[in-house]
């Protein structure tokens, strides 16, 4: 007979005994209540400064609150990979090498990192990004995948596979004889998948991050550059909205709103500090599959 209390982490679902202060898998504070808006968006769970997450025989300590640092203590048999510009510091004995990536030419053209770097334990190595925001720990269970908007990925453990796919969210405009193609979401998205063993994926969100689960066929419109990650089951489409009272030939941003329409089922997450989306206001000549709405 055991009367030991257990706790299920609201973020990653790991069941732990209630004696720990933070979830060993994602670092979420155990005793904090989940903060959910009336519209259904949940804030990232609070995380105590210096919270420790465990993965394999290694652990990661998350330090700071404005621009958090992921400080990893790698065991000899563990390794992680990352885009090389997020490396903050490392012990001299930690070896770093490059990781082979397919489709280098396409990645180069689309502005994605051409080189993925890997670090092998034992030793300490730390990562951070260059904007205020939140560190998101996504523990991935075997068979689980997640799609991440490009340039948001910070670091992943070696047992998480990395792939990428075309976002297929685009539209073209014409300027004289020139045709410009625009990718509001970026040309590609990253996909992380754990085939066999559990893995850990760390992302950096600019500003605050909010996550929401969409029911099957439930839809929501988000700013394309605000998307952080989504489950692969969530489908995406362009949505073009024209407000009432605007002159349709006026070349201004106020002429239309470009949205990303997300369809459930699955999780979606957004960041509150998104980058400005370029739109020259010229007439759209072609576009990927899209829904449209004109008001008046």
């Amino acid at each position, binding site marked *: 007979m055991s009367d030991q209390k257990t706790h299920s982490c609201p973020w990653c679902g790991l069941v732990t005994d209630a004696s720990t202060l933070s979830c060993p898998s994602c670092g979420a504070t155990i005793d904090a209540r989940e903060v959910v808006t009336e519209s259904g968006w949940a804030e990232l769970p609070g995380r105590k400064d210096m919270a*420790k997450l465990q993965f394999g025989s290694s652990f990661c300590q998350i330090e700071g609150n404005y621009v958090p640092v992921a400080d990893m203590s790698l065991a000899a048999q563990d390794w992680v990979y990352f885009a*090389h510009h997020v490396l903050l*510091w490392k012990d001299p004995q930690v070896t770093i090498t*490059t990781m082979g*990536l397919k489709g280098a030419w396409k990645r*180069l053209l689309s502005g994605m990192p051409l080189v993925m770097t890997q670090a092998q334990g034992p030793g300490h190595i730390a990562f*951070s990004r260059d904007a205020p925001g939140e560190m998101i720990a996504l523990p991935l269970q075997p068979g689980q995948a997640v799609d991440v908007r490009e340039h948001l990925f910070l670091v992943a453990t070696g047992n998480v596979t990395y792939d990428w796919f075309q976002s297929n969210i685009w539209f073209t405009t014409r300027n004289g004889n020139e045709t410009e193609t625009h990718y509001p979401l970026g040309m590609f998205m990253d996909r992380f998948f754990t085939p066999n063993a559990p893995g850990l994926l760390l992302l950096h969100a600019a500003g605050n991050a909010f996550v929401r689960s969409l029911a099957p066929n439930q839809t929501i419109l988000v700013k394309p550059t605000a998307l952080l990650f989504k489950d692969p089951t969530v489908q995406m489409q362009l949505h073009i909205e024209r407000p009432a009272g605007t002159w349709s030939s006026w070349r201004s941003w106020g002429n239309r709103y470009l949205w990303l329409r997300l369809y459930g089922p699955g999780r979606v997450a957004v960041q509150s500090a998104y980058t400005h989306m370029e739109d020259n206001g010229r007439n759209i000549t072609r576009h990927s599959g899209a829904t449209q709405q004109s008001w008046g």
Partner: protein
Amino acid sequence: MKHCPKCNRPYDDHETFCGFDGGKLVSDTAPASAAPAPPMNAPIKTEAPRVASAPAATDAIERIACEWCYAQNQKTALSCRSCGAPLDIRNLVSESGWREAPRIRDMTEIHFGMSTCQVEGEIVPVAELNLGQGDAVFFEHHVLLWKDDHTPMSVMPLQGGVKRALAGMPFIISIAHGPGRIAFSRDATGELVVLPLHPGMELDVREHAFLLASHHINYSYLRIKGLRNILFGGQGMFMDRFVTSDQPGLLLLHGYGNVFERVLQPGESIMIEPGAFLYKDSSVTMNVESQKLTTGFFGGTGMNLARMTGPGRVGIQSMYVHHQTD
């Protein structure tokens, strides 16, 4: 307990060298026959006025030593008089040995000379100074937020103006004199790092990272040696150097994001992203090392990391300036 005979900083028994000046530590326990030892050097004598308003020597046992700047404080104090660090919160130190810079509470007051500095706000903190008569601070003019109209201003004469202009360093350093109020802030989310400098200290700071310094501190610049260090070190040709002679001083930096500090032992090394470097003791050496990351057909890219070697303190900022390396 042990202490450093040069700067008199306290250390645990297992430490061997001072992390600030590399001096060999000596035990606090004096021989039984020896009379109580007077302070060994000038720094302690000059330190005294700074903590003069702290309790008298008779109740020394009831003082609280700040873990950030080692100043002594009243036992009832909630924050350090000299650096503003909270005294009722333990240091946050990661398992790898990095200590977070103390998170200064909103509206905390710091004392230096006849003046006070109040730290306001937490996301982009403001340092608001009430300068006393005879006190002055110097700063780069673009960090000035506001001032009383009667606060006198002047310009610090600098050597090597042409070199500084060519290197992108501030050509003009302004000075504000007391009495009067003046406030400073930078243009990004981050932390104020309050560094009270004891007499005889030398601190090297990333260019443009210093917010203000009190007038007892000598300001100069250090030319970075080695072409690789200049090209790939992430901070150009020069570093700011702040030196105290026989008077203590107050130096305020603004670090982007969060700031962490680590004390390196003699010969101990750490590799850091050059854009993350914020400050170091002058005893710490910095050398940029390159690593080629090849990708076969496309040639790859290079990664440059700065090897910092102790003894001494190293401070880094988590929101660093990434510099194109290749």
